[in-house]
């Protein structure tokens, strides 16, 4: 057991930090303000290889392990949580293709996703239902040589810029575990429409929209896994997503802590820097404890994914802990910085707005706590 980063991880962390300092940090506030999708940064990330970090080498990616992925994602999130989320959703889509796609699907989609030519997305939630798949209505009916899709998906990240989406749909109206499948849907398909963008509190540049599908034809070759295998597969993908969303939260928390410490060292009140006052010290210590605890949970969840151990408990716990930690870190950082933290003069207000999503996204913290408690009841 080793808590230290390997030399390779340190190098990837350094490379990501270097990239972020040059290309992400200088533009992060601007994209957040204008709500424009950061096409230039994402294109550059594709050229530099960031978009294919989890694509195996034989399909044009870098084939990095999950823990190294987590180190890179945390560093991206420290610079801009929006960029980290765009990257994260793209990677979740890739992860699913790598794990459950057949050879032909991998050859067809992974090289484009690895190079950044295609941007991936992931659609699960529906507007009229919670996250329980049994309530879902989006239906892909089997026809002679294709599936005919009608319905819609809500809250899709990368909706405007994305070109390839992983979509979870029911294939019949029965409510059994065999009634679902995941499909690869390209935006160019007829019958695919994108609704107007949501104006979100945080992650403003990530372009979140709803999708509508009307008589959209999806070829059989775009179905992932055998018929009826979707529910089990999507469960695993959601666990991956939750663990990595937790990592993004840790990155946001770390950025808050860094800014708060930097400010507290410089801000002098009554002749001494405010970092010397005990109330500020307590806030900083609590921030560190919560962020570090969340990081440990996230790393354990990611380590379990890497080692093919079911991460159901840990990825939920990681997302909940990280959501709480980064929200608290954002609040405390603003309180330490006072009016300066509350204004857009410093990036902390952006971190604060972004932090809320970690608790809300990919299954709200409340339902995750209930699911975790149910799982604990069964296991103990």
């Amino acid at each position: 057991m080793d808590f230290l980063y390997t030399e390779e991880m340190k190098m990837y962390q350094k490379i990501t930090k270097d990239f972020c300092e040059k290309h992400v940090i200088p533009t992060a506030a601007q994209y957040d303000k204008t709500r424009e999708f950061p096409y230039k940064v994402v294109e550059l990330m594709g050229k530099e290889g960031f978009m294919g970090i989890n694509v195996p080498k034989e399909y044009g990616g870098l084939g990095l392990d999950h823990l190294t992925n987590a180190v890179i994602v945390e560093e991206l999130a420290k610079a801009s949580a929006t960029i980290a989320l765009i990257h994260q959703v793209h990677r979740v889509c890739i992860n699913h293709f790598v794990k459950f796609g057949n050879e032909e699907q991998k050859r067809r989609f992974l090289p484009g996703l690895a190079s950044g030519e295609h941007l991936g997305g992931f659609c699960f939630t529906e507007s009229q239902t919670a996250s329980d798949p049994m309530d879902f209505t989006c239906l892909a009916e089997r026809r002679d040589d294709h599936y005919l899709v009608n319905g819609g998906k809500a809250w899709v990240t990368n909706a405007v810029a994305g070109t390839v989406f992983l979509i979870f749909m029911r294939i019949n109206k029965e409510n059994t575990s065999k009634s679902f499948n995941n499909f690869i849907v390209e935006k160019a398909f007829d019958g695919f429409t994108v609704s107007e963008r949501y104006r979100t509190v945080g992650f403003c540049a990530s372009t979140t929209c709803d999708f509508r599908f009307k008589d959209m034809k999806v070829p059989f070759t775009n179905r992932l896994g055998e018929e009826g295998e979707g529910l089990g597969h999507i469960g695993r993908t959601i666990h991956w997503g939750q663990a990595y969303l937790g990592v993004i939260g840790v990155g946001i928390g770390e950025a808050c802590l860094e800014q708060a410490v930097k400010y507290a060292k410089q801000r002098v009140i009554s002749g001494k820097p405010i970092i010397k006052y005990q109330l500020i010290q307590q806030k900083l210590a609590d921030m560190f404890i919560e962020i570090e605890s969340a990081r440990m949970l996230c790393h354990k969840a990611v380590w379990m994914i890497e080692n093919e151990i079911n991460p159901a408990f840990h990825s939920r716990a990681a997302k909940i802990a990280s959501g709480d930690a980064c929200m608290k870190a954002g609040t405390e950082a603003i309180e330490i910085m006072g009016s300066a933290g509350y204004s857009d003069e410093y990036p902390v207000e952006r971190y604060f707005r972004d932090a809320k999503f970690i608790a809300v996204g990919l299954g709200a913290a409340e339902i995750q706590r209930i699911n975790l408690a149910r799982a604990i009841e069964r296991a103990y």
Partner: protein
Amino acid sequence: MNIAVYLKFGEDYKAYAEVDMATCDACGVCVKVCPFNVPSVTGETAEISPKWCQGCGVCIPYCKTNSIHMHYTLNREAYAPSKADPRGLRYPLDKNALEAGLALRDMVGGKVWILAEGPPQFEESVRESLVMGADEGVLLCDSKFLGSDHVASSLILEQALKKIGDCDLLIAPQRNGHGQPVSSVAWVAERLDMSYVPFVKSLKPAEETVLVQQSWGGKLLELSVSLPAAITVERGINEPRGLSLMAAARVMGKTVPHWSSEELNLDSSQIGEAGSQVRLKSIQALPRSKGKKRKGGDMLKGSPEVLAQTLVERLKEWRVL
């Protein structure tokens, strides 16, 4: 074009401060100023542990009785197994030298070799160079190299260049990370019959030659230099590129070869202290100047507005503004 970039890492000598018991009055100023909290006043004199002293020399000018002297010994610990963090490329001029080679290769094609001399923990520096885009990297690493002067160092570099084969251009930083000129390059150029140009401020390819701008005596000279050539580059020659994720994925997990004196066919009498004519023995602070006392400036007083106004007037008076 085959380009070799020579980088020298690590300190051959370890410095430590020593207190002269006869003159020290245990005033404790060294305890206050040491950035590493090494000195202590336990009895009638101060003590500085040579084990922990970092040899920065900060305490020397503060000592009122001139009782602290620096001593140098050969840094044999540098090659001992260490748990110290591996060292990346930290000195900006090293990156400038590497970028000069990489940019030239990108223009005319060929290969960039990193020939780095230093202890094993600098393997990471070679790896970082590879992650920046160099094609091959070697660490010239042997405890026998310790204490080599410029001539002995040039022998090591010469053998390494012969081992990699044809080298059209040898590039090195003008100074190493400790501010010392990398003069071994001049010796190598002399022995291998290469053109030699120091203080290079820009570098461009041309047919069979390279065009360089050299800063010399406050002037900028444009020179056409025939190949093979050896150059040392100055700060500001370029803006070094960042680390590449793709190169990292290619390089990571690969071992950086270490070339010892045996692999370079060097006898221990030719290198290290044994092969050097120049050896560092010790270093002492110059006696304090007993010239005129500083007159001291005027202490301005008043509100910030008055202070600012007075300052502006003074600056105008002195024709600074």
